């Protein structure tokens, strides 16, 4: 055997011979499994068809365009009972996404604080954090929501309002917060927001091409600053205002009013999710060895730079996958809105199915919507995770 052959064998070792399996048997097993699944499917479809025929329910997606005819007490998107079922479903998805986004944002911020409190060396602070974390991890969220909702009606005065914070009012009608009144319609605002995001991203990207990290940050911040100033200036000229809520008996005048139902689902899910996110943050902080902090300090980096350049990137790699499943859990837990009477996507679907008896099509819509939301979320976060991953050369 020549030397070149040896080298070749070392570089490209031969694959070991396949095990003496019986591919024929495997094919048989697979065919059997597929056949069984198909048989079950045929039986189910057949019974369903005969059940549907017996009850006189036609299949079809026409019902989506019929008049919805039911009211939804509060919506993010404009809605009246005269709209179609399809639009009612879209409105429901909007409410679900609205609640999920707010809860995710709030519990990420609060959870970071709570996670840091959990690893504090002050025993009082870490003990309180532990109490919160173990409390929500060991009781069902549905109980927390029912509890909060009952508490709402018991703790607040039957007449009049409370002033828990300056500018914030609370009564049995809900919570009123100051509202910002913009002189433009919502579509213009959304377009402006998207344009602003694109602009900042481009500025950051352009700066990144010049290589210097510091300059990239400076440019991004500058772009944001200019943009904010421009918007503020334009708004001031067109009559931008803050609408402070005022009490009128137990009711409010002005401001933005959050109903007790929306408040309960937001506060309850945030309390619940915060406990889980705190644990993820704690794991993330503990995953960065102490030597990394010390080494970064020894290199002469300033404390903010130690955090930004050395610790956070390593922490994020540990945190991001479990955070992804937490955010997806928030979307799933938002279905609990049902028990406090806030109308989310599932509630809308329940009403639509009850009114039209299109159970099969409704189920397909439910499965489709949740699959789409979850897959989109995990795809986005996985992409970001890929950006963070260690790039080995």
């Amino acid at each position, binding site marked *: 055997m020549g030397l070149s052959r040896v080298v070749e064998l070392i570089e490209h070792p031969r694959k070991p011979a396949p095990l003496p399996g019986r591919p024929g048997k495997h094919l048989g097993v697979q065919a059997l499994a597929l056949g069984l699944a198909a048989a079950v499917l045929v039986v189910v479809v057949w019974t369903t068809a005969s059940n549907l025929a017996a009850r006189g329910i036609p299949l079809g997606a026409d019902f989506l365009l019929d008049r919805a005819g039911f009211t939804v007490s509060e919506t993010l998107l404009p809605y009246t009972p005269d709209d179609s079922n399809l639009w009612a479903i879209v409105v429901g998805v909007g409410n679900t996404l609205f609640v999920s986004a707010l809860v995710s944002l709030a519990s990420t911020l609060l959870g970071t604080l709570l996670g840091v409190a959990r690893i504090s060396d*002050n025993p009082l602070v870490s003990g309180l954090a532990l109490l919160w974390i173990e*409390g929500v991890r060991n009781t069902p969220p549905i109980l927390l929501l029912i509890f909060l909702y009952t508490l709402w009606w018991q703790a607040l005065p039957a007449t009049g309002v409370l002033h828990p914070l300056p500018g914030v009012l609370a009564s049995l009608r809900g919570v009123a917060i100051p509202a910002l009144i913009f002189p433009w319609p919502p579509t213009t605002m959304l377009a402006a927001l998207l344009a602003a995001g694109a602009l900042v991203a481009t500025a950051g990207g352009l700066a990144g091409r010049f290589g210097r990290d510091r300059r990239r940050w400076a440019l991004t911040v500058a772009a944001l600053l200019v943009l904010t100033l421009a918007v503020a200036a334009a708004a001031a000229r067109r009559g931008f205002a803050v609408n402070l809520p005022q009490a009128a008996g137990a009711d409010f005048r002005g401001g933005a009013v959050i109903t007790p139902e929306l408040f309960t689902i937001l506060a309850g899910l945030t309390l619940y999710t915060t406990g889980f996110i705190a644990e993820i943050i704690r794991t993330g902080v503990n995953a960065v060895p102490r030597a990394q902090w010390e080494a970064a300090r020894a290199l002469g980096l300033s404390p903010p730079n130690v955090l930004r350049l050395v610790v956070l990137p390593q922490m994020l790699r540990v945190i991001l996958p479990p955070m992804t499943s937490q955010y997806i859990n928030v979307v799933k837990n938002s279905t609990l809105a049902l*028990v406090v009477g806030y109308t989310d996507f599932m509630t809308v679907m329940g009403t639509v199915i009850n009114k039209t008896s299109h159970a*099969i099509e409704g189920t397909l819509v439910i499965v489709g919507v949740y699959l789409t939301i979850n897959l989109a979320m995990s795809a986005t976060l996985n992409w970001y995770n890929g950006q963070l991953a260690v790039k080995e050369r």
Partner: protein
Amino acid sequence: MTFAAPLARRPAELSRRTRLRTLASHLVGSPLNLALTAAVALAALTVLPGLLRWAVLDAAFLPATPETCRATTGACWSFVLAKHSQILFGIYPFDARWRPALASAVLVGVLIYSVRPAAWRLSLTSIWAAALVAVQILMGGGVLGLTPVPTAMWGGLPITLILTVVAIGGGFPLAILLALARRSEMPAIRLMSTVFIEATRALPLLSILFIASIMLPLLLPEALLPDKLVRAVIALLLFASAYMAEVIRGGLQAMPKGQYEAATALGLSYWQTQRLVILPQAITLVIPALTNTIIVMIKNTSLVLVVGLFDLISSGKSALADPLWRSPATETYLFISAIYFVLCFGFGRFADMLERRNKVAR
């Protein structure tokens, strides 16, 4: 505030005096810690006296009648004392309530017994079967001179426990099969398992319960249609199996290739390899994650409330509907939370203890 070092000296190694000094320095050592301690103390001073007055000093305990409750401004624990058996067991006949109590004890016992790796023998299946038969006899009656009680009258804690135990116990074998199928070399098997697992995990449990309650009457012939309890059990079982399958798959992936090769070299067949070599090790590896899944399932059973089953929360709600009392909802929900907390936290600590003992034994 500094972060606790991973290799900090253990308190047990320090003398009591040093420990006190460390505690003091952690409480008031740095300006931040001093401020935090002061803030916590201030908050405690404003909240605790009122809470103490409400929960203990002004609270109504005995005698457990509506009058004691109405006479006080504090918590009405007398309601919980008077109604605890209705909250725990729902509308189950009053004279026979020792039966659901015993059934609950059997269910908790079998759950605790099965977490230990030492119990993982073939006899475990027969123990589970025996426990479930015993629970069915105790709850349903009709034999051994026990009066029959229809499932519609079951409620409270036994429902929560039956749902948990059947979903976990029935879901576990299915989860093992799903995990093995997802790692199978046969594409058709792998595809079916993956589709089932991913679809189940993408849907909220509430929507699965809802779909089960509206779709099953359409999908199945009238004669095969199970009652509400069985429908919820099936939905929970499938749900639990998808989550446990992913946990077990994690354990399977952590097995070194050498284990498979060694088993093959010994001439073991695929099923022998899995049963004797791979699965015992893989499942032992993922006990902490499995414990988490079981705790999540205990919490999840509370969702059956939305399909009209009488679990702990619903029976608490119906107890509150008594017009004689002033409906002390806070106290009742705190009582139910405490039951869930004891179940979940206790189970979690028990599994932790097993895990530590297991580590020492190796």
